[in-house]
């Protein structure tokens, strides 16, 4: 059967992609950030999965206001790179896994999550920046990717609890799959940031670190935090952090198994307007 071996959490600031694409990653401003991912790049080389189930949000690129899915799973064979307004990022297109993604969709829908199935979708920095951070510059991503987009743009977004329960359902789906796949689940977005209004630039280092602590040690408790606290304490765009709970809910301990091993933890301010948080959690094998 397929297994979730690890989860990865990381912010996904567009400026990080731009820094890499324009060769600025060794400038002092960016070097401090990329240093925090040096371990991770080696770790991913040593622990390359067959498939990454990548939870992220679209930023008005694949989805406009004409149709806003709460949860959308990509079941396409591949995904082009979105032109977000600056031209498409010069990174490889993303190869999907239609068969496995459809299996997960079926299982999760039968577990009462009302997914939207998507077969034609360009992927934006929400998906490509985490890949770039973890893989560096590359001509081909190291494995297949199943994009899973969460609406965190128009309110109401799904609750932390709903996201956490969805993670559990994804784990059940993975374990019902006959092929012996090594699967990682990534939760992306956040941490504290606000991109709009006179309060733009908000950063809450203390809150972010408390979130990381609790995500590791008490994810079920974290799942019950209401949205308003994310928005007030971590900025209007800090709400992206609910997506991390999907990945966290898919780990063994959320499903009656042992606690994960913290392989890596990193926190840095700023990347452009944003606090960058990053975790790698491994399931005991």
């Amino acid at each position, binding site marked *: 059967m397929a297994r979730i071996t690890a989860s990865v959490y990381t912010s996904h600031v567009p*400026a990080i992609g731009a820094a890499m694409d324009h060769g600025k990653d060794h400038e002092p401003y960016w070097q401090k950030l990329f240093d925090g991912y040096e371990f991770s790049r080696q770790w991913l080389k040593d622990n390359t999965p067959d498939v990454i189930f990548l939870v992220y949000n679209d930023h*008005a690129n694949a989805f406009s206001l004409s149709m806003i899915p709460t949860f959308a799973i990509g079941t396409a064979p591949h995904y082009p790179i979105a032109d977000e307004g600056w031209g498409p990022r010069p990174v490889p297109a993303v190869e999907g896994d239609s068969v496995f993604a459809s299996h997960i969709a079926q299982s999760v829908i039968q577990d009462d999550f009302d997914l939207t199935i998507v077969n034609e979708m360009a992927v934006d920095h929400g998906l490509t920046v985490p890949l770039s951070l973890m893989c560096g510059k590359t001509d081909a991503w190291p494995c297949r990717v199943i994009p899973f987009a969460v609406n965190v743009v128009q309110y109401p977004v799904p609750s932390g609890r709903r996201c956490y329960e969805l993670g559990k359902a994804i784990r059940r789906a993975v374990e019902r799959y006959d092929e012996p796949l090594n699967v990682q689940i990534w939760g992306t977005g956040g941490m504290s940031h606000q991109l709009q*209004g*006179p*309060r733009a630039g908000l*950063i809450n280092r203390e809150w972010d670190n408390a979130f990381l602590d609790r995500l590791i040690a008490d994810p079920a408790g974290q799942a019950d935090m209401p949205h308003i606290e994310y*928005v007030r304490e971590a900025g209007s765009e800090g709400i992206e952090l609910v997506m991390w709970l999907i990945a966290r809910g898919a780990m063994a301990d959320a499903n009656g198994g042992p606690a994960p091993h913290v392989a890596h933890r990193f926190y840095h301010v700023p990347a*452009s307007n944003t606090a960058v948080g990053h975790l790698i959690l491994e399931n005991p094998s």
Partner: protein
Amino acid sequence: MALDKPYKDIPGTVIFDAEQSRMGYWLNQFCMSLMKAENRARFLADERAYLDEWEMTEDQKQAVLDRDLNRCVQLGGNIYFLAKIGATEGKSFQQMAGSMTGMSEEDYRDMMVSGGRPIEGNRYTHEWEKK
């Protein structure tokens, strides 16, 4: 009993809910159109003419022409959509976000490098009213 909107009590912040989305529908869809290079070129060549192709209010068009992003947000714009106006001109997210704070580009950048805007005093609207 209507639904609760506790997020109205955060200073300097507009949450993009259904009400804002309805108000800003065509403003945001106009922004989406700037994802195509040919539309970006047409917009830059004659902004007013391009805006007039959309069912936007005069206030919304003026706010776009003025690059007044705070006003755009109040009129229903969402920052991810509005960012495409900045992208069309080669502006970064940091320049756009900074422009909404009343700070200079340099001051905003310096604030971010020094750890960002602190949370103290920035949680509730009443904290700003005192100022």
